[in-house]
């Protein structure tokens, strides 16, 4: 253990000091266990399920596969960083309204993935939506209501223009 050593991570616009961390700790572990940000979930430790999706310099990545110490100079956004105050984002609200949440364990990762998709491709086709979230496994919903939530968000954004 590296006593008295630390590094800084920039998460959701704030700088956090990570102290006494083992070098091998994943970004997922550091976010959850050291920085008090448990919104990001771990479910496979292999980058297969997408539950741990965060934005790293604007890219959607599986935080279980990122060594935390390598993210020192990066801008990290977690699910906690998408919400401003107590206000849900349009994606989050659509997930609630369309029944896209059951147990909710995959949900934070999906929320980050869908925000990332719509930020980069505001008018995705059906297959672009499916492909964009195909790295996020949901065991409860069978995805039908998740598709409905994404489509609802797009509809609302289009109507707001």
């Amino acid at each position: 253990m590296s006593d008295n050593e630390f590094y800084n991570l920039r998460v959701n616009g704030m700088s956090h000091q990570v102290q006494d961390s083992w070098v091998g700790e994943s970004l997922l572990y550091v976010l959850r266990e050291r920085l008090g940000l448990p919104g990001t979930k771990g479910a496979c430790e292999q980058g297969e399920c997408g539950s741990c999706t965060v934005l790293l310099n604007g890219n959607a990545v599986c935080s279980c596969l990122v060594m935390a110490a390598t993210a020192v100079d990066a801008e990290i956004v977690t699910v906690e960083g998408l919400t401003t105050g107590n206000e849900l984002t349009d994606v989050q609200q659509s997930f609630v309204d369309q029944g896209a949440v059951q147990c909710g364990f995959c949900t934070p990762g999906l929320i980050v993935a869908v925000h990332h998709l719509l930020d980069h491709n505001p008018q995705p086709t059906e297959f672009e939506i499916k492909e964009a979230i195909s790295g996020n496994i949901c065991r409860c919903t069978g995805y039908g209501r998740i598709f409905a939530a994404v489509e609802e968000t797009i509809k609302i954004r289009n109507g707001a223009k």
Partner: protein
Amino acid sequence: MSTTVTARNRDVLGNSALRPDGAGKVSGSFEFTSDMHADNMLWGATLRSPHPYARIVSIDTSAALALAGVSCVITSQDVPGKPTYGLISSDQPVFASDFVRYVGEPVAAVAADHPETCRRALALIQIEYEVLTPLTDPEDAISGKFSPIHPDGNIIRHQRIIRGDQSATGPIVVEGLYEIGMQDQAFLGLEAALAIPDSDGAGVHLHVATQWLHEDLSQISACLALPANRVRLTLGGVGGAFGAREDISLQVHCCLLALKANRPIKMQYSREESFFGHVHRHPAKIFMRHHADASGKIVKIDARFVFDGGAYTSTSPAVLINGITHTQGPYKCDNATVDGFAIRTNNPPCGAMRGFGVVQACFAHESQMDKIAQAAGISPIEVRLINAMATGDPLITGQTMESVAPVARCITDTANIPLPEPLPEIVNELALPGGSGLTAERSNIVRGIGWGVSMKNLMYSEGFDDFATARCTIRDGKVFLKFATSEVGQGFVTLAPQIARSVLGLDDVEIEPIDTQVGSAGSTSASRQTWMSGGAVDGACRLVREQMFKHVGSMHNIDPLRLVISDTDIVDQIGTFRISVQDAIEGFSCSETFEHHHRKTEELDENGQGNCHTAFAFVAHRAVVDVDPELGLVKVVQIATAQDVGRVLNPLSAIGQLEGGIAQGLGLAVMEEIVMKDGKVKNPSFTDYLLPTALDAPNVVAVMIEEYEPQAPLGAKGIGEPPCISVTPAIVAAIRDAIGKDLLRIPVRPQDICL
């Protein structure tokens, strides 16, 4: 005061009320058990057997104990109470002491300051094993050629069903030996618990993700040798269950470590450990022979079921009974000879998974129905319609079908759903079998259509006194509901307030912590909580309403028996009295507890006769698939379904159950299997155990058949399990239809199609 009732969109029964935990779950603030922390907390971890069968010669924990950061190491010698646990038979050791009987069986546990310290400590525990030849083929146990691997023997349960004319036959005789692979529940939220010892060290508070708090409580307290009131359980946030949290996994270990270390202990399995740490769906081999008359009507069924229960009993005896009593499926049948075995082997223990034995039976009987249709020269729809069961029909157990049984309607309503458009000549490659692998060629694709129809028992069977408890309180102008019903994602926390709003006419409903400080609710399994806990909440709210009416009656000098709830008002039926419930309960408080029991059931006799089940639900599935026969790849295009639900209490929740169940059934049909070799799991990871993704999800077109079930407290049947049962054989039938080849095993693998 106007007597017109204003139409209002309240979150009452029948409306798509939204999840009360939805905002927390989408924003990341909802606390799952794995998110919990306590001051001064240590981490716990489990050492597991690498062998399917071995004798433990010695265990040396000294090097692990000497590692800096390690607080304690425990083995079987540290279990103060009952050394074993189990849902039906207490035959599974908390820690193995003499023999290990499956790969992954717990042998020791450690508590340390960091998960990595735990891993290093586990590696330092020295165990000498004498490796033994494992029993991995259930037939070796049945034949008696393998000596017992457990003091209770190798046959967990054997049950026959003998019904009617044993020599009955007909001009059509079709048969097959069907094989079902081992499926994993694969919930996303891994096993997790936080145990906090009482300050006097003589009790413990366990926060845990489980399906049945009170059953856990009784098993844990027995192992800890603590009175039940010194062990308190609170439901932590649960990330899915599907049966895998019905058995004890880390509960006892976590409490033991907390009491030994005298510090809070958090345990959380990795995905790999989760594959070893919970029971799976039973792999099974089922032989079925159907005798039918020339028109295709079933005359008799012969069947033999072999369920591989793995090393310990878990719920195998109940899974076996579910399997064999569903031999006939949702069809009339007067004569049957059925033999069923649940076998102990050195494979991983198997137990509850959504569908519970009926999934296996359904794959066999539905495959058989198509063979009868072919022999009789009729369509898959016709063969199912001419055999369709109805209310009042006798089952092969001698029980009479008392539930509403709209089997024929399930079939015709499904058939009326339009088929999807043919696959266009120019198509997005992601729509082809193999999807993002981009391997299939459009010109090679063939389409097939297949059918599956199923019957599923609801609630518990065989004489079990199945009940659920709920408390309703009115206080400070608000409703509080208390129950121990595990919310695992299914949405009981949405439904319970809907019930209260409908019964009481009040909208402000709060759910109190879900814990063991109230009577048992039974398990969140067997499609039972809407019926059972829903019935308990309904009952408790009705008792409170009675008190409320008495209060209002005395305040306003009106006979309380004349009062009814109309929307959010209390009124009399002739419109001379009206007061808003909110106003009426000012200063009123009341609390009532209600236990809902379902009708009694009985055990089967030696010939498998008896009223063993409570109620049944039915569903039909029609699958349309595209297959690449050369590559053996399948894309499920559409699932059409009509499900018997009794009454829809929340349309949004209901469709979520149907679509989610269908995806799990699709997984079993074409991709999900725990691959075993010589008692070892070959694919304990999400890289190697394949789950349906968004690209695998078919278009689901669903019809919910609402025929009010009079025996159900709310008229609603359980809807959780049926969606995943007959969709699997429907998909396999569609593949058969596309390629013209009999497929006897699920999941259907590429080599089963193309070789």
